[in-house]
């Protein structure tokens, strides 16, 4: 079996790729897609940890997987609201360029 640290390394690579996407893309929808990458990277780490700690006693063995399930649900909510905001912004300014939305500052 592949040891856990390899999965963590893979997870960290996917995570930073997602982060780079968030930082470099200007279209809001692309930023969103990158955020999904980051979320999934975290999920991968959780599932890997669940396997690593499955000795600790049967009662807690599936905690990692249950947490991933909950994150999935949260991601669904986040996507629904996020895309809703996106549509609202697009209606308002006919663009999804997030750099154009810089007047939110103080």
């Amino acid at each position, binding site marked *: 079996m*592949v*040891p*856990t*640290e*390899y*999965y*963590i*390394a893979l*997870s*960290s690579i*996917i*995570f*930073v*790729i*997602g*982060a*780079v996407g968030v*930082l*470099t893309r200007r*279209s809001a*929808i*692309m930023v969103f*897609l990158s955020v999904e*990458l980051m979320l*999934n990277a975290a*999920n*991968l780490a959780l599932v890997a940890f*669940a*396997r*690593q700690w*499955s*000795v600790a006693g*049967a009662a807690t*063995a*599936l*905690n990692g*997987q*249950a*947490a*991933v*399930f*909950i994150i*999935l*649900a*949260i*991601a*669904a*909510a*986040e*996507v629904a*609201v996020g*895309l*809703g905001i*996106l*549509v*609202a912004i*697009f209606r308002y300014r006919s663009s*999804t*360029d997030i*750099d154009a939305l810089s007047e939110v500052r103080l």
Partner: protein
Amino acid sequence: MLGFLLLSAVMIVGAVGVISLKQPVHAALSLVGTLLTLAVTYVTLEAHFLAAVQVIVYAGAIMVLFLFVIMLLNIQGGQQASDMKWLRPAAYGVAVLAAAGIAITAFRNAAPLPDAATINAALQGGGAEQVADALFSEFVLPFQLVGILLLTGIIGATSLVQRKAMTIYGEAQKKVVAAAKPAKAKASVAVLEGPEPAHIAPAPAEPQAQEDIEQELKDILEPDDLKLIKGIGPILEGLLHEHGITTFEQIAALTPEEIEELDEKLDFRGRIEREDWVSQAKLLAEGKKQ
């Protein structure tokens, strides 16, 4: 190990595709590929239920939603030049550092995996039954909270996308204007065809009709407190509202025939005349103007 490396390679290529492809649709499809590979990786980690959910919910439902929005808004690729050129190299640099930091930590803290028998006994393949066991015992509260969160998300998304009442009002007005236009055109055609005065009459009446409709809208939006009229209680007020009577002016303008009709319809037993609503309403309407 070979399988893992293969999966990793596919996943990383897909992820890079997500952040580098120009067209949003391509990027989204690339993300679907990454997520499917991730589902396979879940299988290698003894999480069969999650793998299935990953395919159905993530790669399926959520990504379809993305594609819908991309196509709905018709978002195209192509970027204008950024005024933050320094950001890209900075992002790459920080990314390498962060990934290195996490990977080094993972390898330095590497612990031996439990043997396959233990893992099997504990996870039992991570099937639906096992995950449900955890969700409905240890994780009930988070589970419930997520339910509430999803509900809130639905309401939030709906209200975000919904148009405001003002726009609806504005559109109703537009419709009024649009309805007035063809009638006007018809009237002017009539004028050209034959100089019959009776046909011309509708033309000046048009703005009148529009005003009427606007007044009606206003009446519905700003009702008067009809209960100020002696004899009208909340029940009668409700009945009047149902028949479109919401303002003092409307009551003041009732003709005797209309009163009779209303009386009959609403079973008022002659109260309108007995209590003299009309003159009460006249007084109140004058008072309102001042």
